[in-house]
Structures are given as structure tokens and as C-alpha cells.
């Protein structure tokens, strides 16, 4: 780090003033091959590291075995890592079906028996939700994601349905650049967790908005965040980067705070929702900021600058948004007041938090 340690920052080893002692978070970390890991850390420092052959992306924790954490590879990689955080062991590895790549996300069923993993066809980009036994990691079956370029998947309250963000983008085999901007079609779909039947499908008005990430409140309200494929647009006008879906309703893009789309450079990185405050926190690593929306009124209610911020998760006690930056920084923002005390900031040395952050259950800490 350039210069001396700042009093406002608490690098590892310095006196801790953080409020969440013991709370653990997990994330993919590492910038280069050879350094990729699933990292578990607290505000005190690194708790555990699990080496990964590929760069990870999203993570999921079992609802019935809180020490079981899965890290999914970002496209176009094909494997995922299964770890027991309590025992400090890698306990398994998952791999896509032949002809597919992983799409960075997955989730467990409510009973913890099954693991849903998002995959996409290497050539067509058509999405599949692989259904694995959570303990055996054996492939039990699969569902269609009913779209191309699937990305994040979340379990709906009650466990009967999955919400899937189909990004709509197809990339060339082994690549990451989209090749179908002219014909892309992004959607939010709901899929029955038992039958795989399509329960509902929604799109936003902007055809060049790729729906990427989801967060669901306990009443089923979903915040969906997007990345605008600007190169496919002829104008430079801002577009909404967040949309809200309420049970039984339509998917509605939020127009308030539209100019934030420019500040965020058309790119929302991740989203978390707090049920009590009814606030969605949306990160933008390209805009170096976090923006907050009221998910009931649709109002843009705040913004904070944070260099290369991407990961966001609700704290274990539900009172804070935990934010991670790729320079190893962690910040905590009160969900009700949106205040972010500088003295609770930490920076973990030699840690490069990647796109997503997961709060581990208190039992694991």
C-alpha cells in the first residue's frame, strides 16, 4: 500500500474497532491463476483459505449444514469447489455436464438436500439448472432455465420455486465477450424446484439490459440488477439498472435515480436486500459506488463511494450491509440509516475480494 497505514483503516494486526467480531464472510478471491481461492474471513482477518484451480464467482451455503459452502466458477470455467468451513477441508468438487460451462451461481434447496447449479451450453448459451445431491454431489437431473446466458439463481421463500436471471448473452466457446447483442433476450423466470416447470417469465422494457443478479426479500419481493450492453445501443441516455418484482406482479424497472446509471457506468455488480429496512444495496465496481433503493417505493435513497466495490451481503444479524472491495476492504453500512462508520472499516492484506460476498451463519463463526 502506498504510504503509511491510515488511522481510519484497520489493517490486519491493528487494534480492532469493528462491530462484527466473529462474523464470517466468504468470497472468491485472487487475481491470478495460482492464487484463486475460496476465502473465509472476519473483520479480524483471514479465517480459512481453500485453493481453487479456477477463479470463483458466486457462493452458496447449505441451510441445514451451515459449514458446507460451495463456490461456483465464473464462465467459461466448468468446476465448483465444495468446502467444509468448520473442518477446514475441501470435501468435493462439482463439474458441469459435457458441452457446458458453469455460470457463476447456484443455491441449495430449502431442505438442504439438493444443490441447484447454473450451467449454459458452450455453443448456444442455452441455460440449464443442474440438480445435484447436496451430499453426494451426484447429478440427479436438470431443468431448463428457459433462457440464454443464465446467471444468478435464488430460492424463493417457501422453497417451491427458483428465481433465475437469464442474462440473455451468449459467448463464443471459451470466451467471455457476447456474440448475440443484436438478438439478446434477457428474462427473470420462476421454475418449480421439483418439476422444473416454468412458473412465470418477465422481461424489462430495455432489450439491451442483461439481468444478472437477484436478491429476494422474505415476502417474495425480488430486486433484480442489470448490466446495460451499451455497445448495442445507438444513444447514450441512461437506463435503469434495477427492477423490482412483487409476487403476482410485473417486473418494473426503477426510474428514480436514473442518473445513477451513468455514474455506475451501466453496470450493477451485485445486490442484497434487507427485509426490515426494505432497502436494496446495489454495488457498482465500475462506478466505484454503492447505491440504495427503497424496494417498496422505488425511490433512490442513497449512494456511497467505495473503490472497486462489488460484493454485498446482509450481515448475520440483518442490521448491516457488508461491502467488499477488491483491495481487501470491508465496510459495514447500517441498513436503516445508511450510515457507514469509518472506524468500522477494515482492509485485509493480500486479499482480493472478488465479485460476490456471502455471510456465513452465526453457527459457523
Amino acid at each position, binding site marked *: 500500500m502506498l504510504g503509511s*497505514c491510515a488511522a481510519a483503516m484497520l489493517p490486519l494486526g491493528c487494534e480492532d474497532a469493528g462491530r462484527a467480531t466473529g462474523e464470517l464472510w466468504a468470497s472468491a478471491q485472487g487475481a491470478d491463476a495460482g492464487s484463486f481461492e475460496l476465502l473465509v474471513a472476519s473483520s479480524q482477518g483471514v479465517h480459512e483459505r481453500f485453493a481453487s484451480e479456477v477463479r470463483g464467482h458466486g457462493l452458496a451455503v447449505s441451510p441445514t449444514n451451515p459449514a458446507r459452502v460451495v463456490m461456483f466458477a465464473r464462465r467459461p470455467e466448468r468446476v465448483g469447489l465444495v468446502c467444509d468451513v468448520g473442518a477446514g477441508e475441501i470435501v468435493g468438487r462439482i463439474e458441469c455436464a459435457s458441452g457446458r460451462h458453469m455460470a457463476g451461481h447456484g443455491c441449495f434447496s430449502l431442505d438442504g438436500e439438493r444443490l441447484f447449479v447454473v450451467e449454459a451450453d458452450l455453443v448456444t448459451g442455452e441455460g440449464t439448472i443442474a440438480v445435484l445431491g447436496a451430499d453426494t454431489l451426484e447429478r440427479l437431473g436438470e431443468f431448463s432455465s428457459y433462457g440464454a446466458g443464465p446467471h444468478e439463481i435464488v430460492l424463493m421463500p417457501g422453497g417451491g420455486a427458483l428465481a433465475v436471471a437469464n442474462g440473455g448473452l451468449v459467448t463464443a466457446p471459451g470466451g467471455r465477450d457476447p456474440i448475440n447483442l443484436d438478438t439478446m433476450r434477457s428474462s427473470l423466470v420462476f421454475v418449480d424446484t421439483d418439476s422444473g416447470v416454468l412458473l412465470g417469465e418477465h422481461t424489462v422494457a430495455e432489450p439491451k439490459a442483461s439481468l444478472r443478479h437477484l436478491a429476494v426479500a422474505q415476502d417474495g419481493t425480488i430486486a433484480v440488477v442489470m448490466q446495460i450492453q451499451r455497445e448495442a445501443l445507438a444513444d447514450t441516455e441512461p437506463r435503469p439498472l434495477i427492477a423490482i418484482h412483487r409476487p403476482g406482479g410485473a417486473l418494473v424497472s426503477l426510474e428514480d435515480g436514473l*442518473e445513477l446509471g451513468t455514474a455506475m457506468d451501466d453496470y450493477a455488480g451485485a445486490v442484497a436486500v434487507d427485509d426490515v429496512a426494505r432497502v436494496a444495496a446495489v454495488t457498482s465496481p465500475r462506478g466505484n459506488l454503492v447505491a440504495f433503493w427503497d424496494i417498496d417505493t422505488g425511490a433512490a435513497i442513497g449512494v456511497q463511494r*467505495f473503490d*472497486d466495490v462489488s460484493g454485498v451481503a446482509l450481515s448475520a444479524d440483518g442490521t448491516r450491509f457488508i461491502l467488499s472491495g*477488491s483491495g481487501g476492504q470491508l465496510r459495514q453500512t447500517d441498513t436503516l440509516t445508511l450510515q457507514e462508520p469509518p472506524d468500522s472499516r477494515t482492509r485485509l492484506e493480500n486479499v*482480493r475480494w472478488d465479485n460476490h460476498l456471502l455471510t456465513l451463519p452465526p453457527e459457523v463463526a
Partner: protein
Amino acid sequence: MSSRLTTFALFLATAASVALGCDSSGAGPEGTTTLPTGAEIMRDTVQTTVVPQMAAFDTAAQAMVTDVDSFCAAPSPDGLVGVQTRWRSLSEAWSAVAPYNLGPLDDDVITPKIIFIESMRQRGTDFTQTVRDGIVRGIEGTETLDLDYFDTQTFDEVGLLALEVLVFEDSAQGNSTDPADVLADFEATPRKCEALRGLSELLASCAATVHSGWTESFADTGEPFAETMAGPELADGTEPVVALLVVLQEHLDYIKVRKLEGILDAQLSGHFYLNVLATLEAMDELLTQPREESFGLLERMEATGNTAEVAVVRANFDAAEQAAMDEDRDALATAIGLLDGNLKREVPDALGVELGLTFTDGD
């Protein structure tokens, strides 16, 4: 090689392990001097290059006000040439500091100061027609067209573009750029001069605010932003050298994508390429620090054994500057693309700094 570099080159073996990071002063073998710390280099770089460039922009903006006042007191062909020349000088002075889109120029998430100076910076939109409409609306109105009036207008109706429209074309249908027509328009429409004064004063006010942010006090920090840049981090947690490299990259990307591959600006004045040249020369100076009393980032790279990388960067600057002088749009886009890459890879790698992980690569 300068005498300073000769001395520092003696410590390549030691210096190679001293990244521009959390550093002690990196003491070398007994009886010899050591490399400046990263903070010292940043302080040097900011004080010897950025701050003077900011001062020059401020001075140029104040000079524009003066020349506008002279012209408007008695519009004449020579006076028009004078304000047009002054606009070109001002736009070059701006182009030298436009890359520093942080701190005082980036003082607000939604409406940062930079877009009130260069409206295209927001989203790459050419607001020429918006400016024309605003000028006509103002002139046809009854409000006094002073600084206070323009301070209430939106960012897309003020700044350098608005001044350029005023001094380089008339307001009649067709917007003639014939100097005789432009002068006649000023003579026939005194409120045009009123608008010109108001807009030039607003820009001068902006420039003064930005300059003082760097040298006196910025936001609620209570300290000059130049001092913050020499410290451990900025308000959003960024390391200053990282922030500097990123804004330089972003500006080059803006020039390439929004302008060279999009819409060239400064067309009424015919000054686009010279403005880009001013930007490149300013960045070159920032990285090179050619003054004896200062030690720059490229020198640091050389002193730590990255001479090949420095040679590449210097060659790319030379190519870009030549392309700008040749007004070769394609060659300039290519060269700027290479420089952008250097700022993402060779320069940070050689300096031992890590840029953000997630801001460039997507999910």
C-alpha cells in the same frame, strides 16, 4: 542517464523488491542513497505537475474573462480573433487537467464539476444543439445573462462548449462560422456579449474552485486535495497512485471511445487534435517528471529495472503525440489504445501496485 538515476541504479537489486507500496524508505547498502518513497513520488508528481497544470487552467479561465470583457467593450475583428484564440488556449489548458477526474473535478456522484466544464464527459453526448437552443432562449428572454443566471442552467448548456458556440458561430439559422457573421451577430445582439460574459465568468468560477480544491481545501477534508493524494488513501478507500492511474486510463478510453470512435468535439474551433495533444503532453509530463528537482513514476520504473516497459510507454506516447500532430484519427485511436493498455498493465505491474479486480472484467 541523469546523475540521480545513476545513483539509484546502483540499488537495482534492492530496489527491485521495493514496490510502490507500503514502504519504509527502502534503505539500501551502507553509504548510498535510496529511492524516494511512494508517498514522496506522489507528492512530487502532484506538486510539480498537477498543481501547476491546475493553476494554468485557472489562469487561462480568468484570462478568458478579461479578453471577453475587452471584446465586448468594443467588438471588432481583432477582438473576435483575440477571444477565439483565447478559447483555444483555454481548451488546451483544460485538456491538460481533464484527465484528473478525481477530487475537485469529481465532487459529486451525479453532477460532478467536470461535466459543467466539458459536458461531453458525462456520457459522450454532443450537446451543441442544446447549447444553441439555450443561448437563443436566454437572449430572447429578459433575465440578466450573468454568472448567477448560468449557474442555474443545466450542465449541458454551460462550460467550454457553450463558450465555443458563442465565439465561433453566429446564432442565426445555419449558424455561420464566418468571422464576419459572428462579429455582426455580436454587434447586432448585445445580449450575446452578456451571455458570453456570464458563461466565461461561470467557467472561471469553476476553474478557481477546482484549483483551490487542489491547493487549499477540498470538500470536508479541510486539506488540499494535493495533500490527500500524497497520503495513504482517498475518501472512497482508493490508494492515490491507483486512483491516478485509473483516471488516466479512463480519460484515454473516453477520448478513444467517445471521441475518436464517436464524435469529435472542438469542431467549431478546429482544435480537437491540439486539445488531445495537450492531454497527451500533460500525461507524458506527469509520468516523466522531466524536472531535475522531482522524481517521477517512469523514473521509478526505470530505477527498479523496468527499462523495457518504460521504453514501450515512451514510444507509445511519442506515437500518440505524432498522430495528434498529424491529425490522423485512426493512428491516434490505435496509439491511445496502446497507452491505455500500458496504464492497465506495464505501469502498475512495474510500480508494484494493484489496480481493482472487478471494475474491468465483468462477471
